[in-house]
């Protein structure tokens, strides 16, 4: 790498020129809105020249920063070829028991006493984040493992929520009975969606699933007799423990622990699934459909399994969501939800369990704590997504499989041609 280091000064010179051009371009683009201000009352035009200076300076600075990081990224990629420090550190943390075991115990202890350290409000936010962890892990089965881009995932979430809400409203069905049934019903809906889209791939699949999500929402919104329309369903019961009456605060804590158990359960199941036969079939399906069929894999069954299993988790979370808020209406199940869940999967790293967990925490907790800048929330959200996709296209924690690297080694031990770092 040292031999490839380019001379620094001319480089900076050309960067300055490029950044200046960028700045000029931005000054030109924003001129009409940032500089000219017409006041219709006294029919005058204000020329705010200072704004032009600010835009120019800001654009120059940001562009320079951008170029600097892009250059570092390229160099980083080169450094990675001989094992970047990040990879080595990651490998050490995940393989060295002395580091990883105490870390796990500390984390476990923190998770266990969290509701007693923080307020009910904080716990409630944490429950929401955990719900999105589950949703992300569920969608990760469909998108990350099987490679089926599903933009209508929220539909299954809605199915789970409405199932519990309606059953509870009409028949007084309790949370613990409804939970597994909500998962099963969502799975059936997953298969219902799966059948017509068996032959579709990529963009076409995305469009149809998007439509499916909207259809479910529109039905819920318009079929008043069935779903009570936009006014929704209120007074859904919270999960109970053997008839004991709990305060609101106690309910929150209880739900928190339910969520922790559910998330751990989900992580175990998804982890197992990935290394199972069906998991391998999904990965093969994602890689190449024709080759997959030539391996004797039943394409239809494999796809339907992915849709059904992915939907099951959404059904579970839907049921929990209804129990948490005790009130649901169709506006909780818009396309935006699907987009957020998909962002969690992509941002965290497709196919990676830890990645999805981290992604969910960032995407759910960050906006919560950014409430102060509520107007700019979506802007910050979008900008951080763009930045992450530019600098870490494989997600924050990429799937383990993407970490196989090609290493040239002395011919003596050529048998160990590659090596896998655990994420």
């Amino acid at each position: 790498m040292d031999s490839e280091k380019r001379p620094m000064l001319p480089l900076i010179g050309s960067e300055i020129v490029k950044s200046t051009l960028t700045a000029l371009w931005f000054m030109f683009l924003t001129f009409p809105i940032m500089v000219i201000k017409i006041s219709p009352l006294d029919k005058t035009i204000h020329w705010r020249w200072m704004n032009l200076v600010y835009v120019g300076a800001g654009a120059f600075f940001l562009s320079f920063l951008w170029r600097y990081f892009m250059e570092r990224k390229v160099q980083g990629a080169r450094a990675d070829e001989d094992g970047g420090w990040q990879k080595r550190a990651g490998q050490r943390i995940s393989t060295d028991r002395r580091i990883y075991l105490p870390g796990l115990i500390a984390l476990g202890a923190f998770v266990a006493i969290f509701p007693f350290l923080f307020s009910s409000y904080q716990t409630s936010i944490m429950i929401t984040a955990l719900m999105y962890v589950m949703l992300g892990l569920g969608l990760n089965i469909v998108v990350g493992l099987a490679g089926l881009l599903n933009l209508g995932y929220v539909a299954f979430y809605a199915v789970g929520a409405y199932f519990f809400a309606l059953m509870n409203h009409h028949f007084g069905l309790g949370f613990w009975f409804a939970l597994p049934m909500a998962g099963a019903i969502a799975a059936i809906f997953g298969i219902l969606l799966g059948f017509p889209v068996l032959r579709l791939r990529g963009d076409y699949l995305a469009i149809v699933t998007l439509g499916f999500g909207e259809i479910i929402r529109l039905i819920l919104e318009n079929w008043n007799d069935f779903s009570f329309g936009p006014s929704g369903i209120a007074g859904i019961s919270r999960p109970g423990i053997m008839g004991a009456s709990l305060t609101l605060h106690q309910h929150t804590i209880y739900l928190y622990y339910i969520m922790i158990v559910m998330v751990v359960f989900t992580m175990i199941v998804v982890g197992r699934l990935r290394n199972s036969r069906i998991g391998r079939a999904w990965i093969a399906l994602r890689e190449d459909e024709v080759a997959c069929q030539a391996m004797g894999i039943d394409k239809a069954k494999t796809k339907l399994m992915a849709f059904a299993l992915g939907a099951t988790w959404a059904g579970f979370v839907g049921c929990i969501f209804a129990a948490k808020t005790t009130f649901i209406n169709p506006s909780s199940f818009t396309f935006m939800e699907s987009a957020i869940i998909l962002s969690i999967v992509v941002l965290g790293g497709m196919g990676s369990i830890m990645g999805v967990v981290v992604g969910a925490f960032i995407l759910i907790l960050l906006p919560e704590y950014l409430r102060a800048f509520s107007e700019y929330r979506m802007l910050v959200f979008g900008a951080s997504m763009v930045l992450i996709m530019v600098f870490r296209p494989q997600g924050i924690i990429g799937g383990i499989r993407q970490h196989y690297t090609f290493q040239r080694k002395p011919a003596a031990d050529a048998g160990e041609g590659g090596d896998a770092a655990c994420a």
Partner: protein
Amino acid sequence: MLKVKNLHVYYGGIHALKSVTLELSPGEIVTLIGANGAGKSTSLMSISGIVQARSGEIVFEGVPINAMAPDRIFSLGIVQVPEGRRIFPGLSVTENLDMGAYLRTDRHGIKSDMDYIFTLFPRLAERRHQLGGTLSGGEQQMLAISRGLMSRPKLLLLDEPSLGLAPVLVQLIFATIERINRDNHTTILLVEQNANMALRIAHRGYVMESGSIALQDTAANLLRSEKVKQAYLGIQP
């Protein structure tokens, strides 16, 4: 072992196979040669069930398989190695091989078959942890064939294994195909444009022209036939 009779296949309005009839006996290497677009790949795909025939019969060991799903046909022991070495680029060499043994549950058998494959292609053994997508063209072809072998097929359908490979590698691939046939008595239906090489290792051959079988004979006779020489071996009389 395999009997194909009066097979007709259409892609929409395109009549791709026009009454194709073929037969394979156990332990044979039979080659199917012909120009681009003659319908060779289509023949293989309809045998393995990926493409549905409109009419005709395909019988494998006495069982009609025309209407079966690809995974059922696969489980009867017919394995296709598709054209253009469609290995799984994101999986390592061993994982690719594991996928070939997807329907098997005998761990020991899988292990010993993998060892056998690594003796067939020592190059793959060296690269066992490398991602399929990072292999060279020749290595990918070796992997594609090996992955097909992992299910211990009775009938192996190879679609243009020499496509785009350097002459040395073509030699190696063909020698290995011969060896697979010899070691395991695997029946092989070999689709090739490289007629010369294919006819050298095959017992019998069929020549395909625009969707139907134009000629059929023993490989030795086809190699001598004027028509084949002119059209497929590039030899001027």
